[in-house]
């Protein structure tokens, strides 16, 4: 006999330990994906408990259930449309007042509710007194005290879920909004009652209140109904802004009325979190400390990942040699050796970096520092048309653009996020450094360091200008308002960080990996055919493409060899160097390559500089394109990034080369 299924949704404010609780309940049995049609992350997991299969859906963390953000719409649509058996709201016991605001809204959705009073330990420790019985009575919902980070209260919570499921009676409660609003609510309800289909789908009172608040999303739901005209008429006759404020106000009034009955607190003294903040957002020390921590994170990412990257590389080199050597026919050996194993290897060597970066990012987020980072950098970012939250992804871009674009997920506003995703590729990632080192080293001698530094600066300048440009053209409008909770600092839980790291790392391997593999096979075919020529030589299709595009790139000072190298750079920018090695027939020998580059009369210092500029900007690598597609949900933006990059790169490289020639270099 199969187990009875109970569908449970987890709701709650951000920073209340929702993810920790979710992980504590479901363990490793979870599935991460996206909500249909949007890029908001959807997590589900199943827990078998006392003969029940409890299926848990982790809703996005929200402060409210209005239509302010995609997160809020997703969360409330799930509750209204999918009708889970039980909604568990996770409430931060040390911050009841604001958390109960969401509770008042959940009540109106007419769903069975259980409240998990999380982080009770913190609240009790600082001297708060919580009256749980009184709270259950007033809120008409079972309350379970939990400390998710230490697995306390999880079983009791699941017991309550089962009890609630067995009990068919609906325990509802709602708050009153005062005579003026209530009479309007009644009027709207009366109109809505004339359309039974609407009434069956959504809670009546909830719809009425939302309409009074001017909720566009609910309005759209009503629009198709025959009653829409009467509703619009009624709404046109009132000052909606006034009602919006009044309703929010009344919710807080209701909370203020019950709050003193369920919790009395005695502490307002300086907490440890405030102490830390005093230093970390200090007028003079705040920014330097932030930059130091970021630098430390990079140092760690690369220093600690190196041995693992090396191991992966060795495994793939070994594989390429051993697997392909015994294979017949030769083209198959080449496809598998040079193409697939080489390509997959190129993808997987990023994995240690990505795992560590995400682990550290999760530590920053879990500790509460990420909010401070946005707070510190917002003014600067706002000036260039971005949001404070865009800073971390941009900074991560110096390591690798792929996780940087994935990190942009923490930006709620769609436009802000899109701009961040589109400008990250201009930030010079680690893979571009070998190109600079080779060319600057060969042609600029003692000035090499300055030239490389200039490349990094150029990347930042182009990113900043692009952000401004995009803001005034395609993605019009101002950055979203900065209205952000500064959560108290906490020691992040290891389990949450590891799960976060694993989810994102796996996502990269799965999604980006397939696209990269495809790209690699295409490049391999171009380099290997027509059959019989040397891999990637002048006679191959890549060579032909090089020759074909050479006239286009001639004004930038490139010959066909450089063009071919740039085509290979699509896969991953460090391949530019390797393919130049192939084209100059020196293989994997940097010293020999340097000598032959200097000896080649068609490359001058100026064209080398132009080539560096072009490599920096010309296009995101295949991995980055794959992630852009995934994170924006459409090929449109990936293609836009590709074309925009090429155009910008061409223009700037043209300016550098022709300008330099005019100046007599």
């Amino acid at each position, binding site marked *: 006999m199969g187990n009875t299924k109970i569908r449970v949704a987890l709701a709650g404010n951000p920073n209340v330990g929702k993810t920790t609780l979710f992980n504590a309940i479901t363990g490793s049995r979870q599935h991460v994906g996206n909500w249909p049609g949007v890029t908001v992350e959807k997590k589900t997991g199943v827990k078998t408990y006392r003969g029940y299969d409890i299926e848990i859906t982790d809703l996005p963390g929200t402060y409210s259930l209005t239509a302010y953000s995609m997160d809020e719409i997703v969360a409330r649509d799930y509750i209204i449309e999918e009708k889970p058996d039980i909604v568990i709201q996770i409430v931060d016991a040390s911050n009841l007042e604001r958390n109960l605001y969401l509770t008042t809204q959940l009540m109106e959705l007419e769903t069975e509710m259980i409240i998990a009073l999380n982080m009770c330990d913190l609240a009790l420790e600082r001297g708060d007194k919580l009256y749980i019985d009184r709270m259950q009575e007033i809120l008409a919902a079972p309350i379970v005290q939990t400390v998710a980070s230490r697995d306390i209260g999880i079983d009791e919570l699941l017991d309550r879920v089962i009890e609630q499921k067995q009990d068919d009676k609906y325990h509802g409660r709602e708050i009153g909004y005062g005579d003026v609003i209530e009479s309007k609510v009644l009027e709207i309800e009366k109109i809505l009652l004339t359309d039974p289909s609407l009434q069956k789908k959504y809670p009546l009172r909830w719809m009425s209140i939302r309409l009074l608040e001017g909720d566009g999303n609910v309005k759209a739901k009503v629009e198709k109904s025959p009653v829409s005209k009467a509703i619009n008429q009624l709404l046109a006759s009132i000052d909606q802004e006034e009602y919006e404020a009044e309703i929010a106000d009344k919710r807080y009034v209701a909370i203020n009325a019950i709050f003193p009955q369920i919790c009395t607190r005695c502490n307002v*003294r300086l907490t*440890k979190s405030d*102490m*830390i903040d005093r*230093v*970390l957002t200090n007028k003079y*020390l705040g920014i330097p*400390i932030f930059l*130091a921590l970021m630098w430390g994170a990079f140092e760690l990412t690369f220093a600690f990942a190196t041995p693992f990257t090396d191991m992966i590389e060795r495994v793939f080199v070994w594989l390429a040699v051993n697997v392909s050597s015994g294979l017949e026919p030769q083209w198959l050996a080449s496809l598998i050796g040079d193409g697939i194993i080489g390509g997959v290897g190129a993808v997987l060597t990023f994995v240690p970096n990505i795992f560590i970066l995400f682990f550290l990012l999760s530590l920053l987020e879990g500790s509460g520092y990420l909010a401070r980072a946005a707070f510190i950098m917002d003014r600067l970012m706002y000036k260039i048309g971005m949001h404070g939250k865009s800073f971390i992804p941009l900074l991560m871009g110096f390591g690798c653009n792929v996780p940087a674009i994935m990190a942009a997920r923490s930006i709620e506003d769609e436009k802000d996020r899109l701009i961040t995703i589109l400008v990250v590729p201009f930030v010079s990632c680690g893979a571009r450094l070998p190109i600079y080192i080779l060319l600057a080293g060969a042609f600029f001698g003692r000035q090499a360091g300055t030239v490389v530094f200039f490349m990094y600066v150029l990347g930042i300048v182009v990113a900043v200008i692009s952000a401004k440009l995009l803001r005034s053209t395609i993605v019009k409008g101002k950055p979203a308002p900065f209205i952000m909770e500064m959560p108290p600092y906490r020691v992040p839980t290891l389990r949450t960080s590891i799960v976060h790291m694993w989810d994102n790392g796996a996502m990269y391997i799965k999604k980006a990996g397939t696209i990269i593999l495809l790209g690699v096979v295409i490049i391999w075919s171009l380099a290997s055919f027509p059959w019989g020529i040397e891999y990637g030589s002048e006679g191959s299709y890549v060579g032909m493409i090089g020759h074909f595009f050479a006239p286009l790139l001639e004004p930038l000072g490139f010959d066909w060899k450089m063009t071919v190298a740039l085509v290979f750079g699509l896969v991953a920018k460090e391949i530019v160097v390797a393919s130049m090695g192939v084209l100059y027939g020196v293989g994997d020998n940097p010293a020999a390559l340097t000598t032959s580059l200097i000896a080649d009369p068609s490359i001058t210092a100026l064209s080398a500089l132009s080539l560096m500029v072009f490599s920096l900007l010309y296009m995101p690598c295949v991995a980055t394109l794959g992630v852009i597609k995934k994170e924006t949900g459409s090929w449109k933006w990936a293609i836009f990034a590709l074309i925009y990059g090429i155009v910008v790169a061409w223009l700037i490289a043209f300016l550098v080369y022709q300008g330099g020639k005019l100046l007599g270099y």
Partner: protein
Amino acid sequence: MSTTDKMLFALIMGCSYILIGMVQLITGALKALSEASMTEYAGHVIADGLFIPPDIIAGMILMLIGCVFLYGASEIHSGVHEGVAYVYVGILLSLIFAGIYVLAATGDLLEAHLLKNEEYAGWSILDALRPEIYLGVLSLLTYLKWKDSFEVAEN
């Protein structure tokens, strides 16, 4: 522990971090600017003796941590009780950076002994020792000793 003790500790730590950071910054800058080998530089005995590798950025970070300590010391000195917060964060920062270099050293260790990478030939555990680590250990000991006094001060 009294706040006077904390002030003294912050003063000592602040000065050590700033001085060592300066040596690291200067040697780093000299190394970047000149091709001359480090042995020609007169102060290399100090740098070598204290295991200070030439490193501009790491030097700046050491000096920053020193500033946090000194800021705390001066706040406590002028009677602002919250100055203790700077000492607390100073200890936290020194622990974070000590942790980073310990992990980085683990990476080097793996390269040298597990992967036997040629570039890491001759790498010894002494190469991993740097001021971030030994100053961090000092911080850790102090933190363990004062842990409870921080709790009391904050509540």
